[in-house]
Each structure stands twice: as structure tokens, then as C-alpha cells.
């Protein structure tokens, strides 16, 4: 599957590492104890791990970074931290589970601080958040000058924990110590964009692109930030600049495609997605892009073509053993299925995808999170179809999961589904409170606006609709719920204008 030569990337990465080192010469010199040690008997594994970090964390060349981590554990199959890093960074749930287990198996080969890092990486994946936080804080205190560690922690806090204030503090401290540590600048901009301070993100992006004019990721990040802010022309401009710098920077290729998709130009989007699919070596990433490609048919209201395309991707995901993606495909088909009974069948297939055999291939957290989304979708579809008993039965399953799971997605899915059932019973006040527990889900926001309208809270309903309409991401839920919100707001604006004219 891997056609590119490992040594080619090794040379590239060494050149980049040298360049980074030169760029940092005037910064305080890092002593040998400034960073967490990396223990392996293999020099090749050590180099490959470092190159993985350079590619994955510093340059954001995701596929190449993963390939280096794979090379590292191939060179030293008992390299605990190498396994942990691969398990942490991979998007393939099966690989994540296998590598996390290998990291634990060989953990005695690692130094005590590496062991702590492995505990952190693994705990973030298996829902042991208190353990993860404790390990992370101990490491941050012991290695205040380990920039990659701080950057990883800041990213995890903002992107996965929603602990934006804490993540911003970690990243800001890194930048205070080294204003030219650009990976932290990149993450801090994303953190601001997600934490209600979007005005702080573009200035950081300006610094980032100015500092690294020959790197594609700064332009790519700028494009993504502008897309998040809803400025699609600016997003396209930055993505295209990234591709001018490096035509193989596939993240920007898919960025262009998704921006066209969000703009409603689905034909252009599909053409660009095909280029992105062609340019991706990671099978799980490729399937992810294929899902986005298929979504374009739903976006332009061609459900038959969408289903055909989804069925093709499903077959490929099945062959590749990507069960979460298979489930996601069936969930998308259900969400856009106008017939509730048929949608339930789609969701049954989604659950089957996750059943028995997958238990051996998935981390329980990955499985539970997807299962919760499937059950949540089922409750919403049942409520919309007036099948209240079916909704309640499914809610009970979700409730059972929520009683034992620490996973935020599981908790959010339960509260949201409970809100949907309360809505169906006409208890709008309670429904609103429950739906607000799932504030990032367009489906929940859509129903929340409806509940607020029925409860006579029209100003709040409008605010919720505005929030929903402003979401500019690639998720199927956004494609389903955001366009109607935009139409509703436009209709209201027209009514207001006409009312004013009269």
C-alpha cells in the first residue's frame, strides 16, 4: 500500500528538522533533560519516531507522520512509546486499539516519564480522563520546556476536552517562552476560534503564514479558520496558496473540496474530492473522504445517487475492516432517509457493523461513541415520525449506556435524545435544558430552536438558529440541519424587511 520510499521522507524530515533547529538557534538552548526521553534499542526506531513527530506535530503532514511511527515500531517491535504514539495519532480505530495494547505490553521497556506519557496517551483514548489529566500535569510540570508535550496537551484540552481556558493557558505559555514555536500558534488559533474569541484567530494566522512562507500548513490552517468563520472565498484563497506551496498537501485539497461543498457547488466539490482521494495513502482517511464525496449528493438533494455512492464506500470500508466508518455510512443514509421504517433498517445495519466481531478490533470508547450517535439518530428519527414508543425504547438503551460511560459524546447523545423525547411529550422547558447539554450537535440545536419557539422564547430560538446557521463544517448533521436554519433566518429577514416597508 505504501508506495513512497521511507528514506525519501527520512531525508525530507531531516532537512526540515535541521531548518527548524537553525530557526531556533537564538532561542534558549534545550538541555538533554528538557524533553521526555525516548527509549529504544534501535537507532532507526529513534530517528523514525523523531521524524514522525516532526511530520505529524510540527509540519502537520499527517500521513507521513503516521508512516514514520509505523516504521519506528517495525524497527523496534518492543518500542513502547512508539506504539503509544501510533495508537494516539492514527485515525484507524483498529490500529489504535492494537497499538495501545502493545504500548502497555512493552511499557516496562520505557523510562518512568515515558510510562507516564504512555498512560496519558492511552487514557485519553479509553475514557480515563482523571488519570490522563494527572499524568499530563505531572509531565508538564516536570518538562516545562518540552514544547511538543505542551502542544499536544494544549491541543487535547481544547479540541477534545473543551477545556479551552486551560488549553489556551498551556499554549500561550509555550508561545511566551518561544514566540516562534509555530505549532502552538496554530493550535492556539484553533482554540480561540472554538472558544468564542474568533477575532483572535486571524491575527495569529497572519503571523503563522508570514513566519513560514514556504510551508503549506500555515495557509491551510488560515483557510480552515476562515471557513469556520464562514468566509468561503478567503478560505479557498488560502487553501489554494497552500497547494501552490505544496501540491501534495492533501489536507488543503480536501479543504478546497469541502469549501465548495459548503458553498453549494457540489460538482466542483466532487471533482476536488476525487483529487484528494487519489492523493491519500491512508485507507481510513481515504474512506473518510469518500464519505464526504458521497455527502455532496445529499447536499444537492440527489438521495438515490447518494445512497448508491454510500453503498459502494460501505463495501470498501467493510473489506478494509473499518467498522466505525461502516456504521457512520449507514447512519448518514438513515439521517437523510425520508422513510422512517427504512431509516431504522439503515440504523440496524449501523449497529450490526459495530456488533460482536468489532469488539475485538475497537477500543470500547470508539465503539460506544459511535453506538451512542446511532441510538441518538434513531430517537430523533422516531420523534420526527411520531413514533414515541420506539423513541422511548431506544432512549432506554442510551440511558443504560450513559449510566456507566464517562464519555462526553455518550453523555451528550443521551441528554439530547432525552430532550427529543421530552419535546415529543410537549415538555418544552425540560427539553430545552436537555438539548442544551449537546451544544455542538446541529440536530440538537435544530430541535432546541423548535422547542424554544413552542415555549414562546422566540428571541432565544432565533439565537439558536443563528448559531446553527453559522456552523461551517463537514459533518453530516451540519449538512442536514444547517441549510434549513439558514433558509428560516433568510425568510424571517425578508418578512421583517417587507413588514418594515409596509
Amino acid at each position, binding site marked *: 500500500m505504501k508506495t513512497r520510499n521511507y528514506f525519501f521522507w527520512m531525508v525530507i524530515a531531516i532537512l526540515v528538522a535541521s531548518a527548524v533547529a537553525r530557526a531556533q538557534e537564538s532561542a534558549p538552548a534545550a538541555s538533554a533533560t528538557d524533553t521526555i526521553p525516548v527509549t529504544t534499542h534501535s537507532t532507526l526506531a529513534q530517528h523514525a519516531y523523531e521524524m514522525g513527530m516532526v511530520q505529524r506535530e510540527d509540519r502537520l503532514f*499527517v500521513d507521513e507522520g503516521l508512516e514514520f511511527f509505523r516504521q519506528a515500531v517495525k524497527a523496534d517491535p518492543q518500542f513502547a512509546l512508539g506504539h503509544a504514539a501510533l495508537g494516539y495519532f492514527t485515525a484507524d480505530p483498529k490500529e489504535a486499539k492494537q497499538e495501545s495494547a502493545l504500548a502497555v505490553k512493552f511499557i516496562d521497556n520505557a523510562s518512568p516519564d515515558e510510562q507516564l506519557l504512555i498512560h496519558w496517551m492511552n487514557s485519553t483514548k479509553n475514557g480515563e480522563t482523571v488519570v490522563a489529566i494527572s499524568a499530563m500535569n505531572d509531565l508538564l510540570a516536570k518538562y516545562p520546556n518540552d514544547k511538543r508535550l505542551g502542544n499536544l496537551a494544549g491541543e487535547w484540552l481544547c479540541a477534545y476536552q*473543551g477545556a479551552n481556558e486551560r488549553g489556551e493557558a498551556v499554549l500561550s505559555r509555550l508561545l511566551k517562552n518561544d514566540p516562534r514555536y509555530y505549532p502552538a500558534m496554530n493550535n492556539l488559533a484553533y482554540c480561540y476560534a472554538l*472558544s*468564542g474569541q474568533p477575532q483572535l484567530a486571524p491575527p495569529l494566522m497572519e503571523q503563522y503564514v508570514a513566519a513560514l512562507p514556504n510551508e503549506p500548513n500555515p495557509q491551510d*490552517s488560515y483557510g480552515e479558520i476562515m471557513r469556520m468563520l*464562514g468566509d468561503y472565498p478567503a478560505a479557498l484563497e488560502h487553501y489554494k496558496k497552500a497547494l501552490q506551496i505544496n501540491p501534495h498537501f492533501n489536507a488543503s485539497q480536501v*479543504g478546497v473540496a469541502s469549501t465548495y461543498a459548503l458553498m453549494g457547488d457540489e460538482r466542483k466539490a466532487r471533482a476536488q474530492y476525487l483529487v484528494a482521494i487519489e492523493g491519500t495513502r491512508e485507507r481510513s482517511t481515504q474512506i473518510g473522504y469518500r464519505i464526504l464525496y458521497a455527502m455532496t449528493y445529499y447536499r444537492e438533494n440527489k438521495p438515490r445517487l447518494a445512497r448508491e455512492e454510500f453503498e459502494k464506500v460501505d463495501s470498501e470500508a467493510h473489506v478494509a475492516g473499518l467498522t466505525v466508518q461502516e456504521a457512520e455510512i449507514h447512519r448518514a443514509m438513515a439521517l437523510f432517509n425520508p422513510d422512517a421504517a427504512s431509516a431504522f433498517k439503515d440504523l440496524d445495519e449501523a449497529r450490526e457493523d459495530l456488533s460482536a466481531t468489532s469488539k475485538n478490533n475497537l477500543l470500547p470508547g470508539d465503539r460506544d461513541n459511535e453506538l451512542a450517535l446511532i441510538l441518538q439518530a434513531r430517537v430523533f428519527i422516531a420523534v420526527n415520525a411520531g413514533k414515541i414508543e420506539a423513541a422511548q425504547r431506544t432512549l432506554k438503551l442510551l440511558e443504560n449506556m450513559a449510566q456507566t460511560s464517562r464519555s462526553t459524546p455518550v453523555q451528550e447523545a443521551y441528554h439530547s435524545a432525552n430532550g427529543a423525547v421530552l419535546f415529543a411529550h410537549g415538555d418544552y422547558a425540560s427539553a430545552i435544558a436537555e438539548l442544551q447539554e449537546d451544544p455542538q450537535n446541529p440536530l440538537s440545536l435544530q430541535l432546541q430552536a423548535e422547542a424554544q419557539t413552542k415555549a414562546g422564547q422566540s428571541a432565544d430560538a432565533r439565537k439558536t438558529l443563528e*448559531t446553527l446557521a453559522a456552523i461551517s463544517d463537514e459533518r453530516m448533521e451540519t449538512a442536514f440541519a444547517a441549510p434549513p436554519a439558514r433558509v428560516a433566518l433568510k425568510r424571517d429577514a425578508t418578512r421583517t424587511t417587507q413588514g418594515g416597508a409596509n
Partner: protein
Amino acid sequence: MRNRWCIVCVLLLSVASVAFGTDYAIVVNPGNPARALSLVELGKIFKAKTTIWPDGKGITLVLREPNSPGTKFILEKVLGGTFDEEKAVLSDPSRKTVVPVVFAESDEEVMRIVGGNAGAIGVIDVYNITGGVKVVKIDDKQPFDPGYILKGR
């Protein structure tokens, strides 16, 4: 680009800053054998009705400043009343000898005091936890568990 960010990124400019609360963790010295308390037992410690641990060590309560949002929240949750009703419990003069209350300026200071005092029990934002303290369960639940009582907003 942040690959993982791309997957989860959502623009919720108006709600993101208020959508996430934090869980508060009850922490003790790592040498303290206590692993769990009920909310009622915790309330008794706050009210100085329980003054020693089962092993006989005297209890010291370590909190952030009385008017900090965290302390207000914890007092209301643990003692059940409003902050104005419950804050007097902390300033009761008799507490100088039994279950004294120490106010710290930061979570780091709370952990420093708890880490250095075998009988201390403190409250901190869960995101500040380190290996220098031990988290105890409250009503058999720890932070991030579903239904954890000290979940802030």
C-alpha cells in the same frame, strides 16, 4: 491544518465559552487510605461535625478564597443551601481547633497543602489534578462520571 481538529471542529461562537463547565475534584493526601466519601459525609466534614479520619488523623479543609466561584458552587452543592446561608460555616470561630479551614490562592496551593498534610482534604478544578494528590469518589462517582454531583457549569 489539524487533522483531528477538522473532524470535531464546530463553530459555536456564541455558546462555546459557556457550554463547557468543569468538574470539581475532592482531593486528599496520597497517603490517606480514604478512597470514597458520600456527599453526606463530605457535608459533615465541611460543617466540622466529622473532625477526624478513620485512622485518627485530624481533618483540615483546604479551599480557594471564600468568594471564588468554585468555593461558592461547592458550598451550595455540599451543604445544600445558598452560598449566603452556608458561608458562615467556614468562618465559625470554633473551627480554629477542629477541622480548620485554610484558604488558598490557587489550585496549585491547595494541592501543595493537601500533598504536605496527611489529614487535609481539598477542592480543586479537575483539570489541575496532579499525581501529588489523590482524587476521592463522591457517592461512588469521580469527576467525568455520569451523574457526578460536583459537576460545575
